[in-house]
């Protein structure tokens, strides 16, 4: 299904065409659901929260100022809703991780991974992501899967830009190390 720009749907909704909102929901439901389920870790809860997110966004649509993209604004609502549900503090500062010493650089690890079949690479990635804390998993997914900028991620999570950069650096290193470790075990 080909989607139009979000602003087209938003204008339609604000002009009284409620059905246009269904297109916005269909367009963004997967990522909203992904964000929520990474935090709450329960499919039923994630579905309910995700529906509430879209309802809340609809009710607040008049207040959307379009300073950011609609998706960024929506993901922020999703993130806050999921965090509220789990009553977690936003991004509790995790203790500094010990640097895992490996004999390989990230480039070398990438090369090793490239030698594997596509399916195997995806399995290793999935296992490595599951090892990450939920919030770190979410951060790296927003950056690499959804290609959100550092500033977008800062807006969504409420972290400062510098904090996001620091965390992203650590998460990326950890992800590579975990992938290498999984490869070694296999």
């Amino acid at each position: 299904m080909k989607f139009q720009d979000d602003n087209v749907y938003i204008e339609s909704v604000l002009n009284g065409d409620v059905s246009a909102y269904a297109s916005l929901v269909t367009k963004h439901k997967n990522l909203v659901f992904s964000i929520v389920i990474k935090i709450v870790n329960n499919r039923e809860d994630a579905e309910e929260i995700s529906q509430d997110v879209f309802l809340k966004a609809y009710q607040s649509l008049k207040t959307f100022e379009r300073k950011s993209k609609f998706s960024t604004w929506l993901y922020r609502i999703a993130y806050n809703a999921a965090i509220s549900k789990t009553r977690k503090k936003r991004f509790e500062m995790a203790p500094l991780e010990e640097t895992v010493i490996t004999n390989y650089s990230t480039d070398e690890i990438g090369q090793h991974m490239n030698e594997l079949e596509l399916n195997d690479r995806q399995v290793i990635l999935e296992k490595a992501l599951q090892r990450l804390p939920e919030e770190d998993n979410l951060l790296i997914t927003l950056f690499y899967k959804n290609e959100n900028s550092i500033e977008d991620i800062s807006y969504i999570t409420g972290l400062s830009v510098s904090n996001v950069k620091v965390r992203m650096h650590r998460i990326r290193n950890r992800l590579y190390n975990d992938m290498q470790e999984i490869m070694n075990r296999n």
Partner: protein
Amino acid sequence: MENKELLPDDFLMGLFRNQSMESPSDHFTEGVMEQILREPEAVPVKKPFYLYLRSAWPYVLLGLAILLFLFTSDLPFTGYIPGKEYFSKNLLPYFQSLFSGFKSLQITMKTISIPVMVILAGGLLLTLDHFLFRKPTIRQQTSH
């Protein structure tokens, strides 16, 4: 830390591109739209001024009627209401003469005066109803 270390690396981006994303149930969108349509005023509509009047006017009239009763009453305790004496001496005579012009109608044309009074009263009520009880359109209910 240099920004270049955070530039998206092609390897990870390629990996994530092929990663499947979690999806909600097939009826997710329907569920959301059902909730929205169940509450037609989910997009907040600014309440028109006359809708506030619609709910407030009975209380205003009741208040005026009570005030009129107190100001024209002979009950002992009402003597202490401030301004009552001024009202009785200066304003009440004007109310008494307000309808004095209609007295002649009542005396000389009884067969006409009653219907005229009924029509006047009915016209007044219809005018009040027209201005105070205007129903909002469906578009006003659902638009921003």
